[in-house]
């Protein structure tokens, strides 16, 4: 295991932020800490980096107890949401910082920094200053800077949180590809479930300072541990007292076995996807269907239909909560 977090508790004043958190991160994996804001995911990341001290519990990095080690000695790479670029240093000097601190020979630094700048596609920007870069470029620079010292683990705190949607999507794909090239154990914090599912190979869901579920993206999406995780990981709707994914509902104008009668209240076309809003037993629910399917049914508001969870679809009974 690259990172082993055991029974970590942390409070800010009287507010508990982490409660008995234990997480294992496998070597070479790309793990997402996913959860709503205030869930403790950033604090957990900072505890791993040594930027916060846990009240109790231990953190081991590559088998070494790092709980009381200063961030300086942990050999972790950390990328901040707002880049934390060294404003008075050029892009080159930013990336070289960790190597200069380690007093590496000049030619070695130059070679390594240029390699990294190529890796993050900033080789032409080496002499610029952070203020002359776009947000996405700054974040790539910060990533190169963190990678320069060959860290045991790379920690990213909402790395794309401050970027606009388009750049965010690009960088996501790029991070995934970068990880496939570099293979450094990576943990990143995000509140965006789509980002976590797309990029990570393991998702740790954190809420109210506790680990709620750990698993692969498919596992967490398909077999959520509780209604909270199910709601957080993707769209849900409620029929017959259960939580169901809207794309896991069958809708029909003819009676079907186990179906519940419903009335169509609205049909919203969102490109390829069509949202059919229905009323089931006095409650609002919605069903996601393809445009083709919706056209075949020719649904109109007021139509009487029958709905049921698709056979084999995972649903969670709400009464259990």
């Amino acid at each position, binding site marked *: 295991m690259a990172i082993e977090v055991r029974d970590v508790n942390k409070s800010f004043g009287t507010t508990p932020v982490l409660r008995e958190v234990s997480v294992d991160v496998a070597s070479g994996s790309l793990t997402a800490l996913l959860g709503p804001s205030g869930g403790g995911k950033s604090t957990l990341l900072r505890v791993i980096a040594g930027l916060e001290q846990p009240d109790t519990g231990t953190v081991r990095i590559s088998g070494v107890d790092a709980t009381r080690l200063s*961030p300086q000695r942990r050999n972790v790479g950390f990328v901040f949401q707002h880049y*934390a670029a*060294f404003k008075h240093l050029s892009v080159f000097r930013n990336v070289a910082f960790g190597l200069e*601190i*380690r007093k590496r020979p000049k030619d070695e630094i130059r070679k390594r920094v240029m390699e990294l700048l190529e890796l993050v596609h900033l080789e032409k920007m080496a002499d610029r200053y952070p203020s002359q870069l776009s947000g996405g470029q700054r974040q790539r620079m910060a990533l190169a800077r963190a990678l320069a010292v060959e860290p045991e683990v790379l920690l990213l705190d909402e790395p794309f949180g401050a970027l606009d949607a388009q750049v965010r999507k690009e960088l996501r794909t790029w991070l995934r590809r970068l990880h496939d090239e570099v293979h450094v154990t990576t943990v990143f914090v995000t509140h965006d479930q789509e980002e976590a599912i797309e990029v990570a190979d393991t998702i740790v869901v954190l809420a109210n300072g506790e680990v709620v579920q750990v698993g692969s993206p498919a596992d967490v999406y398909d077999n959520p541990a509780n209604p909270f995780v199910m709601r957080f990981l993707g769209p849900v709707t409620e029929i017959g007292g259960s939580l169901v994914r809207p794309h896991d509902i069958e809708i029909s104008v003819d009676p079907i076995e186990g179906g519940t009668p419903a009335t169509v209240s609205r049909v919203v076309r969102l490109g390829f996807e069509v949202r059919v809003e229905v009323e089931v037993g006095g409650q609002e629910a919605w069903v996601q269907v393809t445009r083709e399917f919706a056209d075949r049914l020719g649904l109109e508001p007021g139509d009487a239909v029958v709905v049921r969870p698709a056979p084999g679809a995972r649903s969670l009974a709400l009464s259990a909560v």
Partner: protein
Amino acid sequence: MAKYALRALALVYLLFLLVLPVALIVWRTFGDGFGPFAEALTSPSALHAFQVTLTVAVWAVVANTLFGIGVSILLVRHSFPGKRLLNAFIDLPMAVSPVVVGLALILVYGRFAPVGGLLESWGIQVIFSTPGMVLATVFVSLPLVVRAVVPVLEELGDEQEQAAHTLGASRFQAFLRITLPGIRWALGYGVVLCLARSLGEYGAVAVVSGRLVDQTQTLTLFVEERFQNFDQPAAFAAATALALIAVVTLLLTKLLRPKD
């Protein structure tokens, strides 16, 4: 119409308050050419006064720069009981009259005071000597560096320092390579202000120095003493020199200011 009246008023106000006196001093100084000016400033007493002023100012600036950086970091980056009190104390010198500062220092460090007596027995004379004048100058210019640095340090945030730590920098390395360059313009501005204040200090230094000619006489004390002794050329020459230094520092602060 009102606009022009206001402008005229402001100009007249400045004319009588600032331009006229300064211009008159300059006119009086150079009225008989550059020769007497140079002569008055190169007399042994004047040169000695220059030297004393410089010594006192440099020590005061060094002390206040170190103290200013330390306290700024303490105030911005740390929380501790009594922080607000410390913050309030730093502005105290702005409110207290320099003469009071001088008298207070004599009460503590004078020959017949406990602390002063003790130091005297070790051979260190504070009052009527350079250490006392440095103390007085440090006191009156205490807030200048702190007040220049604190807002910039606040704006800078601590993420860059944290990033430096994760990259392997010690606290001291992070300070030298990240924090210090981040506050350099503000620090420069504070240091120049502090220097200007130290060079021009009169009241507190007058009390603790004992105004011993050729011994503890600074340039401001020299101006006053020469004037009292009807040596107006020397007084005006030294005053003009002080004014020139003030103008240069003012220009320096203007140069340093917009960079942040």
